């Protein structure tokens, strides 16, 4: 009957100022009643043209830019960029620097997934409770970042050739004190949501991405793993000595929003395992190699990628032997994960569209750059 009798199609803006777009981002949804019949994303509200600006600054000066792309995981962004420069210039990082980088990147993944899982629960309507629990733990991680780098959100801690400073006094105790409560919080969040019938009804079989489509659409990170594709750059292409750590890749079953959520929770557990191992085997020695401030890498190009909390974060640098990169390109995982939004939302209801959007775990700073 609804095929015959249709109401007027109705353009409904979800965003840019909307409680669940996680930033200034807009979905222009055409709806018929409660059903979304077309969805178009509009981005660019936060565009700062970092790629252009970076072409006029030195390699070291560009590190703070990377903080501000994905502001929820600045450590990972620093790391990806520094890896790209090191690959371009052929710089080796001492083992201690690598271990510190691993600890920081994994703590950052924990902090980011705390936010992602909590915000997703918020989008399904679990009114603030899970996000508050996760934010409580995230605050502790940010405290550790603050004592290490002096900043909570945009840390700017990684340097080309290592990290900026030596770890502070009492760092290891702080991190070890964090692990137990965080495990408990993950278990709490899982207990509150994973088996909850309402949560299952909202997240299961919603926004399904089959694995072949996930690969074809260049998805990465939890979006790809949620579809059952075992792909983690830490395993596939280890950097910073990830091959020494023992961890597993969590993969989902059918690629729905629920799978992405449980994959994120399990990734947090695995990250805790890595942090523990890295703390146990923290080597001595220098934390960084000496790198000239006005670095002039040889002409060439390098693409380095890491497994950021949102997926494959790649930096593509082209050098023309100048002090600043000839081309500085970020491969933003959020943006490419977002490109399947239409496939995920069309045909579902408005509420499903919100859940689909929440399950991508976007950061608009990274999408627009």
């Amino acid at each position, binding site marked *: *009957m*609804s095929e015959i*009798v*249709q*109401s*007027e199609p*109705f*353009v409904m*803006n*979800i*965003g*840019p*100022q*909307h409680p669940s777009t996680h930033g*200034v981002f*807009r979905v222009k949804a055409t709806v*018929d*009643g*409660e*059903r979304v019949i077309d969805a178009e994303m509009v981005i660019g509200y936060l565009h700062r043209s970092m790629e252009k600006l970076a072409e006029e600054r030195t390699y070291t000066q560009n590190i703070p830019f990377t903080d501000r792309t994905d502001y929820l995981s600045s450590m990972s962004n620093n790391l990806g960029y520094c890896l790209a420069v090191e690959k371009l210039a052929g710089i080796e990082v001492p083992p201690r620097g690598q271990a510190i980088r691993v600890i920081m990147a994994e703590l950052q993944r924990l902090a980011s997934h705390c936010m992602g899982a909590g915000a997703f629960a918020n989008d399904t309507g679990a009114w603030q409770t899970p996000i508050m629990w996760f934010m409580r733990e995230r605050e502790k991680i940010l405290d550790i970042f603050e004592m290490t780098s002096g900043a909570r959100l945009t840390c700017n801690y990684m340097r080309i050739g290592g990290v900026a400073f030596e770890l502070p006094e009492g760092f290891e105790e702080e991190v070890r004190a964090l692990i137990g409560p965080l495990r408990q919080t993950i278990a709490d969040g899982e207990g509150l949501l994973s088996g909850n019938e309402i949560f299952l009804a909202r997240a299961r079989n919603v926004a399904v991405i089959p694995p072949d489509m996930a690969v074809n659409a260049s998805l990465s990170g939890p979006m790809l793993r949620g579809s059952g594709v075992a792909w983690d750059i830490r395993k596939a292409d280890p950097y910073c000595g990830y091959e020494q750590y023992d961890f597993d890749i969590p993969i989902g079953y059918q690629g729905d929003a629920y799978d992405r959520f449980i994959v994120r929770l399990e990734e947090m557990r695995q990250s805790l395992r890595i942090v523990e191992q890295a703390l146990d085997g923290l080597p001595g020695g220098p934390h960084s190699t000496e790198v000239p401030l006005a670095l002039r890498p040889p002409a060439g190009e390098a693409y380095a990628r890491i497994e950021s909390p949102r997926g494959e974060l790649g930096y593509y640098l082209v050098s023309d032997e100048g002090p600043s990169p000839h081309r500085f390109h970020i491969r933003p995982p959020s943006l490419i994960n977002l490109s399947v939004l239409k496939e995920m939302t069309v045909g579902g*209801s408005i509420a499903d569209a919100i859940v689909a959007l929440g399950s991508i775990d976007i950061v608009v700073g990274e999408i627009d750059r």
Partner: protein
Amino acid sequence: MPRVFARDFTNGWDVLHEYGHIAILVIIALIFPAGAIVQSWAFKFVNIRPEVPSDPVKEDTYECGMVTRGSALTQFNFRFYYVALLFLLFDVEIVFLFPWAVVFEDAGLVGLGKIAIFVGTFVVGGLYAWRKRALEYA
């Protein structure tokens, strides 16, 4: 048997007497929120409430930060009509059931049977609606 009413309505107390109380309460109930709104409005004369001059952006409807285009008062989805019809069907039925519920004991098993037939017709109607997928909203 339990007693039926807290108060004996046959003994001088009229039911309308009680509804009269409710009528007075209706007036109070309307004054109460209207007073709050009027008070809030009147605060601007004693400079407690700010009164910023209006501009087009402020008086626009909220559209997530975009400029609103078109009216929101459009035709809504047809499904809604089904729900309204079903509600009418069942609510009218229930209105007829309430008198029976009060005289239930006098009606006895025979009354129950009659009511079962009555409800049965609506159950058939409901099943038909279910079959026709009228119960699926959105």
